[in-house]
Protein backbone atom coordinates (compact mmCIF):
# COMPACT_ATOMS: atom_id res chain seq x y z
CA UNK A 1 0.00 0.00 0.00
CA UNK A 2 1.38 3.39 -0.90
CA UNK A 3 0.91 6.56 1.06
CA UNK A 4 0.54 9.64 -1.09
CA UNK A 5 3.51 11.93 -0.58
CA UNK A 6 2.50 15.45 0.42
CA UNK A 7 2.30 17.36 -2.79
CA UNK A 8 4.52 20.35 -3.23
CA UNK A 9 2.81 23.72 -3.50
CA UNK A 10 4.03 25.60 -6.52
CA UNK A 11 4.12 29.32 -7.06
CA UNK A 12 2.24 28.80 -10.31
CA UNK A 13 -0.69 27.25 -8.46
CA UNK A 14 -0.76 30.10 -5.98
CA UNK A 15 -0.50 32.70 -8.76
CA UNK A 16 -3.35 31.08 -10.68
CA UNK A 17 -5.47 31.28 -7.55
CA UNK A 18 -4.60 34.92 -6.80
CA UNK A 19 -5.24 35.94 -10.40
CA UNK A 20 -8.61 34.23 -10.32
CA UNK A 21 -9.49 36.00 -7.10
CA UNK A 22 -8.37 39.35 -8.56
CA UNK A 23 -10.55 38.80 -11.63
CA UNK A 24 -13.60 38.03 -9.47
CA UNK A 25 -13.07 41.20 -7.44
CA UNK A 26 -12.45 43.37 -10.51
CA UNK A 27 -15.58 41.90 -12.11
CA UNK A 28 -17.62 42.47 -8.91
CA UNK A 29 -18.50 38.78 -8.71
CA UNK A 30 -18.57 39.00 -4.97
CA UNK A 31 -20.73 35.91 -4.42
CA UNK A 32 -18.18 33.77 -6.25
CA UNK A 33 -15.40 35.54 -4.38
CA UNK A 34 -17.00 34.69 -1.04
CA UNK A 35 -17.04 31.04 -2.08
CA UNK A 36 -13.23 31.18 -2.02
CA UNK A 37 -13.22 31.95 1.71
CA UNK A 38 -12.99 29.48 4.57
CA UNK A 39 -15.74 29.56 7.20
CA UNK A 40 -13.32 31.24 9.60
CA UNK A 41 -11.86 33.69 7.06
CA UNK A 42 -10.72 37.16 8.10
CA UNK A 43 -9.98 40.29 6.08
CA UNK A 44 -7.71 42.97 7.51
CA UNK A 45 -6.54 46.38 6.36
CA UNK A 46 -4.26 47.80 9.08
CA UNK A 47 -3.93 51.54 9.55
CA UNK A 48 -1.20 53.19 7.51
CA UNK A 49 0.90 54.02 10.58
CA UNK A 50 0.71 50.56 12.23
CA UNK A 51 1.03 48.00 9.46
CA UNK A 52 2.13 45.27 11.87
CA UNK A 53 -0.52 46.12 14.47
CA UNK A 54 -3.02 43.72 16.05
CA UNK A 55 -6.64 44.63 15.33
CA UNK A 56 -7.65 43.75 18.91
CA UNK A 57 -5.65 46.64 20.33
CA UNK A 58 -5.09 48.88 17.31
CA UNK A 59 -7.60 50.86 15.26
CA UNK A 60 -7.60 49.30 11.78
CA UNK A 61 -9.28 50.52 8.62
CA UNK A 62 -10.93 47.10 8.22
CA UNK A 63 -10.91 44.09 10.55
CA UNK A 64 -13.64 41.70 9.36
CA UNK A 65 -14.38 38.22 10.56
CA UNK A 66 -16.31 35.88 8.26
CA UNK A 67 -19.70 37.22 9.33
CA UNK A 68 -18.59 40.84 8.88
CA UNK A 69 -17.29 40.01 5.39
CA UNK A 70 -20.73 38.58 4.58
CA UNK A 71 -22.33 41.81 5.82
CA UNK A 72 -19.79 43.91 3.91
CA UNK A 73 -20.69 42.13 0.68
CA UNK A 74 -24.42 42.63 1.35
CA UNK A 75 -23.70 46.31 1.94
CA UNK A 76 -21.58 46.99 -1.12
CA UNK A 77 -23.95 45.09 -3.39
CA UNK A 78 -26.78 47.38 -2.24
CA UNK A 79 -27.40 50.38 -4.52
CA UNK A 80 -27.77 52.38 -1.29
CA UNK A 81 -24.09 51.86 -0.59
CA UNK A 82 -23.52 55.32 -2.00
CA UNK A 83 -19.72 55.12 -1.90
CA UNK A 84 -19.90 52.23 -4.37
CA UNK A 85 -22.88 53.22 -6.45
CA UNK A 86 -22.17 53.68 -9.26
CA UNK A 87 -19.58 51.00 -8.65
CA UNK A 88 -15.89 51.70 -8.80
CA UNK A 89 -14.01 50.14 -11.66
CA UNK A 90 -10.90 48.49 -10.35
CA UNK A 91 -7.97 46.79 -12.02
CA UNK A 92 -5.49 44.80 -9.96
CA UNK A 93 -1.94 43.97 -10.91
CA UNK A 94 -0.40 41.27 -8.75
CA UNK A 95 3.28 40.38 -8.84
CA UNK A 96 6.28 39.26 -6.78
CA UNK A 97 4.27 36.32 -5.50
CA UNK A 98 6.19 34.32 -2.91
CA UNK A 99 5.33 31.30 -0.84
CA UNK A 100 6.75 32.23 2.54
CA UNK A 101 5.59 29.31 4.64
CA UNK A 102 3.87 25.94 4.46
CA UNK A 103 2.54 24.29 7.58
CA UNK A 104 0.26 21.29 7.29
CA UNK A 105 -2.59 22.43 5.03
CA UNK A 106 -1.83 26.17 5.43
CA UNK A 107 0.23 28.13 2.94
CA UNK A 108 1.40 31.64 3.73
CA UNK A 109 1.80 33.82 0.67
CA UNK A 110 3.13 37.32 0.09
CA UNK A 111 2.49 39.35 -3.05
CA UNK A 112 2.73 42.92 -4.26
CA UNK A 113 -0.21 44.68 -5.79
CA UNK A 114 -1.32 47.82 -7.51
CA UNK A 115 -5.05 48.40 -7.58
CA UNK A 116 -6.24 51.18 -9.85
CA UNK A 117 -9.64 52.56 -9.01
CA UNK A 118 -11.88 54.82 -11.08
CA UNK A 119 -15.19 56.39 -10.15
CA UNK A 120 -17.36 58.49 -12.42
CA UNK A 121 -15.33 61.43 -13.67
CA UNK A 122 -12.75 61.21 -10.90
CA UNK A 123 -9.07 60.97 -11.52
CA UNK A 124 -7.34 57.66 -11.00
CA UNK A 125 -6.72 56.44 -7.46
CA UNK A 126 -3.78 54.08 -7.10
CA UNK A 127 -3.68 51.73 -4.12
CA UNK A 128 -0.19 50.25 -3.86
CA UNK A 129 0.91 47.71 -1.32
CA UNK A 130 1.41 44.12 -0.31
CA UNK A 131 -0.99 41.24 0.18
CA UNK A 132 -0.44 38.63 2.81
CA UNK A 133 -2.53 35.51 2.53
CA UNK A 134 -3.00 32.44 4.60
CA UNK A 135 -4.43 29.88 2.17
CA UNK A 136 -5.85 26.52 3.15
CA UNK A 137 -5.30 23.63 0.78
CA UNK A 138 -8.43 21.57 0.24
CA UNK A 139 -9.36 18.75 -2.10
CA UNK A 140 -11.06 21.45 -4.15
CA UNK A 141 -8.14 23.85 -4.42
CA UNK A 142 -7.16 26.76 -2.18
CA UNK A 143 -9.44 28.60 0.19
CA UNK A 144 -8.60 31.96 1.81
CA UNK A 145 -8.28 31.79 5.58
CA UNK A 146 -6.76 35.22 6.03
CA UNK A 147 -6.34 38.13 3.70
CA UNK A 148 -4.29 41.09 4.90
CA UNK A 149 -3.78 44.20 2.80
CA UNK A 150 -0.86 46.48 3.68
CA UNK A 151 -1.13 49.86 2.01
CA UNK A 152 2.25 51.51 1.39
CA UNK A 153 1.02 55.12 1.46
CA UNK A 154 1.97 56.84 4.73
CA UNK A 155 -1.62 57.92 5.04
CA UNK A 156 -4.74 57.09 3.09
CA UNK A 157 -4.85 60.73 1.97
CA UNK A 158 -6.36 61.23 -1.47
CA UNK A 159 -7.16 57.51 -1.72
CA UNK A 160 -10.10 58.50 0.48
CA UNK A 161 -12.00 55.37 1.38
CA UNK A 162 -11.61 51.61 1.18
CA UNK A 163 -15.27 51.12 0.36
CA UNK A 164 -14.69 48.17 -2.02
CA UNK A 165 -12.87 44.88 -1.35
CA UNK A 166 -9.21 45.93 -1.78
Amino acid at each position, binding site marked *: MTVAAPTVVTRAEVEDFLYREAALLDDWKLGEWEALLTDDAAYYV*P*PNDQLEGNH*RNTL*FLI*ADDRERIRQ*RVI*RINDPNCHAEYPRSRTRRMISNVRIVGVEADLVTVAANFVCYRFRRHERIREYVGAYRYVLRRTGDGFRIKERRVLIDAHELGSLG*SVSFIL
Partner: protein
Amino acid sequence: MSARSYIVDDREKKTFLLDREALVSEEVLRGEISQVFGRCWIYVGHSSELKKPGDFRSRRVAGRPVIFCRDQQGNFHCLFNTCRHRGAIVCTERAGNRRRFQCIYHGWTYGNDGRLVGVPGDDAYAEGFDKSSHGLRRPARFEDYRGFWFMCLDPEVDPLSDYLADAKDYIDLVIDQSPSGEMEIIAGVQEYDVAANWKLMVENSVDDYHLPSTHSTWLNFMANSGVKIEPPKEAGLVLPTRGKAVELGNGHFTTDNVNFRGRPVAKWIPLYGEAAKAEIDAIRRELVDRLGPERAQRVADTNRNLVIFPNLVINDGSSVTVRTFYPEGAGKMHVTAWALGPVEEGESARARRLDAFLTFYGPGGFATPDDVEALELVQQGLANWAEDRWSEMSRGMGKEGEQLNSDEHHLRIFWRRWNEMMGASA
Protein backbone atom coordinates in the same frame (compact mmCIF):
# COMPACT_ATOMS: atom_id res chain seq x y z
CA MET B 1 -12.58 92.96 7.40
CA SER B 2 -15.66 93.08 5.26
CA ALA B 3 -18.95 93.20 7.08
CA ARG B 4 -20.59 91.02 4.49
CA SER B 5 -22.83 88.28 5.83
CA TYR B 6 -22.95 84.77 4.39
CA ILE B 7 -26.21 83.88 6.07
CA VAL B 8 -29.79 85.06 5.93
CA ASP B 9 -31.09 84.46 9.43
CA ASP B 10 -34.71 85.57 9.50
CA ARG B 11 -36.20 84.55 12.82
CA GLU B 12 -39.55 86.15 12.05
CA LYS B 13 -40.06 84.31 8.79
CA LYS B 14 -38.28 81.34 10.34
CA THR B 15 -35.91 80.88 7.48
CA PHE B 16 -32.17 80.34 7.48
CA LEU B 17 -30.19 80.40 4.28
CA LEU B 18 -26.49 79.91 3.68
CA ASP B 19 -24.64 81.60 0.85
CA ARG B 20 -22.91 78.74 -0.96
CA GLU B 21 -19.99 80.98 -1.77
CA ALA B 22 -18.86 80.22 1.82
CA LEU B 23 -18.21 76.64 0.68
CA VAL B 24 -16.43 77.23 -2.61
CA SER B 25 -14.43 80.45 -2.42
CA GLU B 26 -10.65 80.50 -1.98
CA GLU B 27 -11.01 84.08 -0.75
CA VAL B 28 -13.35 82.94 2.00
CA LEU B 29 -10.77 80.27 2.86
CA ARG B 30 -8.03 82.88 3.20
CA GLY B 31 -10.34 84.83 5.48
CA GLU B 32 -11.12 81.88 7.69
CA ILE B 33 -7.47 80.86 8.03
CA SER B 34 -6.83 84.19 9.76
CA GLN B 35 -10.25 84.98 11.28
CA VAL B 36 -11.28 81.51 12.44
CA PHE B 37 -8.24 79.22 12.64
CA GLY B 38 -6.01 82.13 13.68
CA ARG B 39 -8.21 83.10 16.63
CA CYS B 40 -9.79 79.89 17.96
CA TRP B 41 -8.40 77.18 20.19
CA ILE B 42 -7.41 74.32 17.87
CA TYR B 43 -7.00 70.72 19.00
CA VAL B 44 -3.37 69.50 18.97
CA GLY B 45 -3.41 66.11 20.65
CA HIS B 46 -4.12 64.06 23.76
CA SER B 47 -1.77 63.67 26.71
CA SER B 48 -1.97 59.86 26.41
CA GLU B 49 -0.10 60.09 23.10
CA LEU B 50 3.00 61.20 25.05
CA LYS B 51 3.39 58.75 27.89
CA LYS B 52 7.01 59.43 28.89
CA PRO B 53 9.38 62.41 29.04
CA GLY B 54 10.94 62.82 25.59
CA ASP B 55 7.98 61.34 23.71
CA PHE B 56 6.97 63.35 20.68
CA ARG B 57 4.50 63.39 17.79
CA SER B 58 5.00 65.59 14.77
CA ARG B 59 1.84 66.63 12.96
CA ARG B 60 0.13 69.47 11.19
CA VAL B 61 -2.31 71.48 13.27
CA ALA B 62 -4.34 74.15 11.50
CA GLY B 63 -1.89 73.85 8.63
CA ARG B 64 1.13 74.42 10.88
CA PRO B 65 3.78 71.75 11.25
CA VAL B 66 4.22 71.31 15.00
CA ILE B 67 6.02 69.02 17.42
CA PHE B 68 3.74 67.91 20.25
CA CYS B 69 6.21 66.68 22.85
CA ARG B 70 7.28 66.31 26.47
CA ASP B 71 10.58 67.55 27.86
CA GLN B 72 12.85 65.71 30.28
CA GLN B 73 10.82 67.07 33.21
CA GLY B 74 7.64 65.75 31.63
CA ASN B 75 6.16 69.15 30.70
CA PHE B 76 4.03 69.24 27.55
CA HIS B 77 5.04 71.52 24.66
CA CYS B 78 3.74 72.47 21.28
CA LEU B 79 6.64 73.74 19.15
CA PHE B 80 6.60 75.01 15.61
CA ASN B 81 8.51 72.42 13.61
CA THR B 82 10.54 75.07 11.82
CA CYS B 83 14.26 75.72 12.27
CA ARG B 84 15.04 79.22 13.48
CA HIS B 85 18.09 79.30 11.20
CA ARG B 86 16.70 78.87 7.69
CA GLY B 87 13.28 77.43 8.23
CA ALA B 88 13.55 73.68 7.56
CA ILE B 89 11.43 71.11 9.35
CA VAL B 90 13.57 69.88 12.25
CA CYS B 91 11.63 66.76 13.23
CA THR B 92 10.95 64.45 10.29
CA GLU B 93 9.72 61.41 12.21
CA ARG B 94 6.04 61.01 13.02
CA ALA B 95 6.57 59.80 16.54
CA GLY B 96 9.27 58.63 18.90
CA ASN B 97 11.32 59.60 21.91
CA ARG B 98 14.12 62.14 21.64
CA ARG B 99 16.10 64.51 23.83
CA ARG B 100 17.15 66.57 20.83
CA PHE B 101 15.77 67.61 17.48
CA GLN B 102 18.54 68.33 15.00
CA CYS B 103 17.96 70.16 11.74
CA ILE B 104 19.59 68.17 8.92
CA TYR B 105 20.44 71.30 6.97
CA HIS B 106 23.13 73.02 9.07
CA GLY B 107 22.84 71.03 12.24
CA TRP B 108 21.13 73.47 14.60
CA THR B 109 19.95 71.40 17.52
CA TYR B 110 17.05 71.96 19.90
CA GLY B 111 16.14 70.36 23.18
CA ASN B 112 12.75 68.69 23.60
CA ASP B 113 11.67 71.83 25.46
CA GLY B 114 12.41 73.89 22.32
CA ARG B 115 15.64 75.54 23.57
CA LEU B 116 18.43 75.98 21.05
CA VAL B 117 21.26 73.88 22.48
CA GLY B 118 23.70 73.51 19.61
CA VAL B 119 24.91 75.64 16.71
CA PRO B 120 27.84 74.15 14.74
CA GLY B 121 30.65 76.72 14.45
CA ASP B 122 28.91 79.18 16.71
CA ASP B 123 32.17 81.18 17.09
CA ALA B 124 31.50 82.65 13.63
CA TYR B 125 28.53 84.61 14.97
CA ALA B 126 28.94 88.10 16.38
CA GLU B 127 29.16 88.54 20.12
CA GLY B 128 25.57 89.64 20.53
CA PHE B 129 24.20 86.41 19.05
CA ASP B 130 22.04 84.97 21.77
CA LYS B 131 21.15 81.28 21.59
CA SER B 132 18.52 81.65 24.27
CA SER B 133 16.41 83.85 22.00
CA HIS B 134 16.61 81.33 19.14
CA GLY B 135 14.60 78.49 20.58
CA LEU B 136 11.87 76.95 18.45
CA ARG B 137 8.89 79.27 18.25
CA ARG B 138 5.55 78.11 19.53
CA PRO B 139 1.90 79.08 19.27
CA ALA B 140 0.94 82.00 21.51
CA ARG B 141 -1.11 79.76 23.81
CA PHE B 142 -1.10 76.05 24.64
CA GLU B 143 -3.45 74.68 27.28
CA ASP B 144 -5.29 71.47 28.07
CA TYR B 145 -8.62 70.42 29.42
CA ARG B 146 -8.42 67.00 31.11
CA GLY B 147 -5.75 65.76 28.70
CA PHE B 148 -7.09 67.33 25.50
CA TRP B 149 -4.41 69.83 24.39
CA PHE B 150 -5.25 72.84 22.26
CA MET B 151 -3.18 75.68 20.79
CA CYS B 152 -4.16 79.19 19.87
CA LEU B 153 -2.25 81.60 17.65
CA ASP B 154 -3.97 84.60 19.24
CA PRO B 155 -2.32 85.69 22.52
CA GLU B 156 -5.47 87.59 23.53
CA VAL B 157 -7.81 84.62 23.42
CA ASP B 158 -9.82 83.65 26.52
CA PRO B 159 -8.40 80.77 28.58
CA LEU B 160 -9.23 77.36 27.10
CA SER B 161 -11.47 76.48 30.00
CA ASP B 162 -13.63 79.59 29.38
CA TYR B 163 -13.57 79.02 25.63
CA LEU B 164 -14.88 75.45 25.97
CA ALA B 165 -17.82 76.75 28.01
CA ASP B 166 -20.54 74.09 28.44
CA ALA B 167 -18.74 71.72 26.08
CA LYS B 168 -16.70 70.73 29.13
CA ASP B 169 -19.73 68.92 30.59
CA TYR B 170 -19.93 66.78 27.48
CA ILE B 171 -16.19 66.06 27.50
CA ASP B 172 -16.61 65.03 31.15
CA LEU B 173 -19.40 62.67 30.14
CA VAL B 174 -17.05 60.91 27.72
CA ILE B 175 -14.27 60.69 30.31
CA ASP B 176 -16.69 59.28 32.90
CA GLN B 177 -16.49 55.98 30.98
CA SER B 178 -13.15 55.47 32.67
CA PRO B 179 -13.04 54.28 36.32
CA SER B 180 -9.88 56.35 36.89
CA GLY B 181 -11.03 59.33 34.81
CA GLU B 182 -8.24 58.67 32.34
CA MET B 183 -8.91 58.06 28.67
CA GLU B 184 -6.32 57.22 26.05
CA ILE B 185 -5.88 57.51 22.32
CA ILE B 186 -5.65 53.95 20.99
CA ALA B 187 -2.86 53.02 18.54
CA GLY B 188 -3.67 53.41 14.85
CA VAL B 189 -4.75 56.58 13.11
CA GLN B 190 -7.11 57.04 10.18
CA GLU B 191 -6.04 59.86 7.89
CA TYR B 192 -7.94 60.54 4.72
CA ASP B 193 -8.91 63.35 2.42
CA VAL B 194 -12.39 64.37 1.47
CA ALA B 195 -12.91 66.41 -1.68
CA ALA B 196 -15.25 68.82 0.07
CA ASN B 197 -15.17 72.03 2.08
CA TRP B 198 -14.17 71.43 5.72
CA LYS B 199 -17.34 73.03 7.08
CA LEU B 200 -19.41 70.30 5.46
CA MET B 201 -17.71 67.84 7.84
CA VAL B 202 -18.82 69.95 10.80
CA GLU B 203 -22.40 69.76 9.57
CA ASN B 204 -22.23 66.07 8.74
CA SER B 205 -20.79 65.11 12.14
CA VAL B 206 -23.91 66.22 13.99
CA ASP B 207 -26.63 66.06 11.35
CA ASP B 208 -28.93 63.18 12.29
CA TYR B 209 -31.41 64.10 9.59
CA HIS B 210 -29.24 62.34 7.00
CA LEU B 211 -29.01 59.01 8.78
CA PRO B 212 -31.91 57.08 7.21
CA SER B 213 -31.13 58.11 3.64
CA THR B 214 -27.32 58.14 3.69
CA HIS B 215 -26.88 55.17 6.00
CA SER B 216 -29.65 52.72 5.14
CA THR B 217 -27.04 50.01 4.53
CA TRP B 218 -25.71 50.54 8.06
CA LEU B 219 -29.23 50.33 9.47
CA ASN B 220 -29.70 47.09 7.49
CA PHE B 221 -26.46 45.75 8.88
CA MET B 222 -27.58 46.56 12.42
CA ALA B 223 -30.92 44.84 11.78
CA ASN B 224 -29.10 41.84 10.25
CA SER B 225 -27.03 41.72 13.43
CA GLY B 226 -30.13 41.44 15.62
CA VAL B 227 -30.42 45.10 16.66
CA LYS B 228 -34.03 46.21 16.76
CA ILE B 229 -34.57 49.18 14.46
CA GLU B 230 -38.06 50.40 15.17
CA PRO B 231 -39.74 53.08 13.10
CA PRO B 232 -39.86 56.45 14.87
CA LYS B 233 -42.90 56.81 17.12
CA GLU B 234 -43.02 60.55 17.42
CA ALA B 235 -43.63 63.35 14.93
CA GLY B 236 -40.41 64.88 13.63
CA LEU B 237 -38.21 61.95 14.59
CA VAL B 238 -36.27 60.14 11.87
CA LEU B 239 -34.55 57.61 14.15
CA PRO B 240 -35.94 54.93 16.48
CA THR B 241 -35.19 56.99 19.58
CA ARG B 242 -35.43 60.58 20.62
CA GLY B 243 -32.47 62.94 20.42
CA LYS B 244 -31.96 66.63 20.81
CA ALA B 245 -29.52 69.31 19.72
CA VAL B 246 -27.91 71.37 22.47
CA GLU B 247 -26.08 74.70 22.25
CA LEU B 248 -22.96 74.84 24.42
CA GLY B 249 -21.65 78.38 23.92
CA ASN B 250 -18.90 79.94 21.75
CA GLY B 251 -20.09 78.05 18.69
CA HIS B 252 -19.91 74.60 20.32
CA PHE B 253 -22.87 72.22 20.25
CA THR B 254 -23.79 68.58 20.56
CA THR B 255 -26.45 66.07 19.80
CA ASP B 256 -27.72 64.18 22.83
CA ASN B 257 -29.55 61.02 21.81
CA VAL B 258 -31.17 58.09 23.55
CA ASN B 259 -29.11 55.11 22.45
CA PHE B 260 -30.49 52.37 20.20
CA ARG B 261 -27.24 51.23 18.57
CA GLY B 262 -25.39 49.73 21.53
CA ARG B 263 -22.41 51.06 23.44
CA PRO B 264 -19.18 49.36 24.47
CA VAL B 265 -19.70 51.27 27.77
CA ALA B 266 -22.19 49.91 28.55
CA LYS B 267 -25.22 48.80 26.61
CA TRP B 268 -25.20 45.32 25.13
CA ILE B 269 -26.59 44.59 21.67
CA PRO B 270 -26.69 41.20 19.90
CA LEU B 271 -23.89 42.36 17.58
CA TYR B 272 -21.45 42.03 20.48
CA GLY B 273 -22.30 38.35 20.99
CA GLU B 274 -23.72 36.48 23.99
CA ALA B 275 -20.26 36.03 25.48
CA ALA B 276 -19.90 39.80 25.92
CA LYS B 277 -23.02 40.16 28.08
CA ALA B 278 -21.40 39.41 31.42
CA GLU B 279 -18.50 41.78 30.84
CA ILE B 280 -20.75 44.63 29.72
CA ASP B 281 -22.96 44.04 32.77
CA ALA B 282 -19.88 44.32 34.97
CA ILE B 283 -18.78 47.55 33.25
CA ARG B 284 -22.24 48.93 33.83
CA ARG B 285 -22.27 47.94 37.50
CA GLU B 286 -18.96 49.76 37.96
CA LEU B 287 -20.51 52.88 36.39
CA VAL B 288 -23.52 52.75 38.69
CA ASP B 289 -21.36 52.16 41.80
CA ARG B 290 -19.05 55.03 40.94
CA LEU B 291 -21.43 57.58 39.43
CA GLY B 292 -24.84 56.67 40.79
CA PRO B 293 -27.70 55.35 38.65
CA GLU B 294 -28.65 58.65 37.02
CA ARG B 295 -25.20 59.66 35.85
CA ALA B 296 -24.42 56.07 34.84
CA GLN B 297 -27.45 56.15 32.61
CA ARG B 298 -26.29 59.41 31.02
CA VAL B 299 -22.91 57.84 30.28
CA ALA B 300 -24.14 54.44 29.13
CA ASP B 301 -27.49 55.08 27.46
CA THR B 302 -26.93 58.23 25.41
CA ASN B 303 -24.93 58.96 22.27
CA ARG B 304 -23.43 62.35 21.81
CA ASN B 305 -21.77 63.90 18.78
CA LEU B 306 -19.92 66.94 20.07
CA VAL B 307 -18.43 69.74 18.01
CA ILE B 308 -15.83 72.01 19.58
CA PHE B 309 -15.77 75.02 17.31
CA PRO B 310 -14.31 75.08 14.75
CA ASN B 311 -12.87 71.68 13.83
CA LEU B 312 -12.84 69.12 16.63
CA VAL B 313 -15.48 66.41 16.76
CA ILE B 314 -15.80 63.92 19.58
CA ASN B 315 -18.38 61.30 18.65
CA ASP B 316 -19.43 59.12 21.54
CA GLY B 317 -21.62 56.75 19.55
CA SER B 318 -20.94 53.19 18.39
CA SER B 319 -17.53 53.84 19.95
CA VAL B 320 -15.62 57.03 20.78
CA THR B 321 -13.85 58.83 17.95
CA VAL B 322 -11.80 62.00 18.14
CA ARG B 323 -11.77 63.58 14.73
CA THR B 324 -10.23 66.77 13.45
CA PHE B 325 -9.97 68.19 9.96
CA TYR B 326 -8.41 71.09 8.17
CA PRO B 327 -8.90 72.66 4.75
CA GLU B 328 -6.44 72.04 1.96
CA GLY B 329 -8.15 74.41 -0.42
CA ALA B 330 -11.80 75.46 -0.47
CA GLY B 331 -12.91 72.13 -1.95
CA LYS B 332 -10.70 69.71 -0.04
CA MET B 333 -10.04 68.74 3.56
CA HIS B 334 -7.71 66.42 5.37
CA VAL B 335 -9.27 64.34 8.17
CA THR B 336 -7.47 62.72 11.09
CA ALA B 337 -9.42 60.33 13.31
CA TRP B 338 -8.48 58.36 16.39
CA ALA B 339 -10.27 55.97 18.73
CA LEU B 340 -10.45 56.84 22.43
CA GLY B 341 -10.95 54.41 25.30
CA PRO B 342 -10.56 54.09 29.08
CA VAL B 343 -6.93 53.41 30.05
CA GLU B 344 -7.88 50.44 32.23
CA GLU B 345 -10.03 48.76 29.59
CA GLY B 346 -9.45 45.00 29.44
CA GLU B 347 -8.29 43.15 26.32
CA SER B 348 -11.70 41.84 25.25
CA ALA B 349 -13.52 45.11 26.00
CA ARG B 350 -10.90 47.03 23.99
CA ALA B 351 -11.27 44.64 21.06
CA ARG B 352 -15.06 45.09 21.22
CA ARG B 353 -14.68 48.89 21.28
CA LEU B 354 -12.49 48.81 18.18
CA ASP B 355 -14.79 46.41 16.40
CA ALA B 356 -17.79 48.61 17.22
CA PHE B 357 -15.85 51.61 15.88
CA LEU B 358 -15.38 49.88 12.54
CA THR B 359 -19.06 48.99 12.19
CA PHE B 360 -19.74 52.67 11.55
CA TYR B 361 -16.71 54.94 11.42
CA GLY B 362 -13.68 55.32 9.22
CA PRO B 363 -12.60 54.84 5.60
CA GLY B 364 -13.52 51.14 5.68
CA GLY B 365 -16.51 51.47 8.03
CA PHE B 366 -20.11 50.73 7.10
CA ALA B 367 -21.15 54.41 7.25
CA THR B 368 -18.30 56.92 6.90
CA PRO B 369 -17.58 56.15 3.22
CA ASP B 370 -21.16 57.12 2.43
CA ASP B 371 -20.79 60.35 4.41
CA VAL B 372 -17.69 61.12 2.40
CA GLU B 373 -19.66 60.42 -0.76
CA ALA B 374 -22.46 62.76 0.36
CA LEU B 375 -20.05 65.60 1.14
CA GLU B 376 -18.21 65.15 -2.16
CA LEU B 377 -21.53 65.19 -4.02
CA VAL B 378 -22.41 68.46 -2.28
CA GLN B 379 -19.09 69.97 -3.30
CA GLN B 380 -19.58 68.82 -6.89
CA GLY B 381 -23.12 70.15 -6.96
CA LEU B 382 -21.91 73.51 -5.68
CA ALA B 383 -20.18 74.15 -9.00
CA ASN B 384 -23.56 75.76 -9.78
CA TRP B 385 -23.36 78.03 -6.75
CA ALA B 386 -23.40 81.31 -8.65
CA GLU B 387 -26.73 80.45 -10.30
CA ASP B 388 -28.14 78.43 -7.38
CA ARG B 389 -26.85 80.41 -4.49
CA TRP B 390 -28.52 79.42 -1.24
CA SER B 391 -28.49 76.32 0.93
CA GLU B 392 -31.63 75.80 2.97
CA MET B 393 -31.06 75.25 6.67
CA SER B 394 -34.23 76.23 8.47
CA ARG B 395 -35.39 72.79 9.61
CA GLY B 396 -36.90 73.06 13.09
CA MET B 397 -37.15 76.87 13.10
CA GLY B 398 -40.92 76.74 12.97
CA LYS B 399 -41.39 75.16 16.36
CA GLU B 400 -41.17 76.25 19.94
CA GLY B 401 -39.00 74.63 22.57
CA GLU B 402 -36.63 71.73 22.24
CA GLN B 403 -34.79 71.22 18.99
CA LEU B 404 -34.26 67.68 17.77
CA ASN B 405 -31.04 66.08 16.59
CA SER B 406 -32.65 65.86 13.15
CA ASP B 407 -33.43 69.57 13.08
CA GLU B 408 -30.85 72.05 11.86
CA HIS B 409 -30.65 74.17 14.99
CA HIS B 410 -27.09 73.07 15.77
CA LEU B 411 -25.98 73.64 12.19
CA ARG B 412 -27.31 77.18 12.47
CA ILE B 413 -25.33 77.66 15.70
CA PHE B 414 -22.17 76.79 13.81
CA TRP B 415 -22.91 79.03 10.88
CA ARG B 416 -23.91 82.02 13.03
CA ARG B 417 -20.66 81.76 14.98
CA TRP B 418 -18.59 81.29 11.82
CA ASN B 419 -20.30 84.23 10.14
CA GLU B 420 -19.64 86.40 13.17
CA MET B 421 -15.96 85.43 13.32
CA MET B 422 -15.61 86.19 9.63
CA GLY B 423 -16.49 89.77 10.51
CA ALA B 424 -20.13 89.95 9.54
CA SER B 425 -22.61 91.64 11.79
CA ALA B 426 -25.60 89.39 12.27
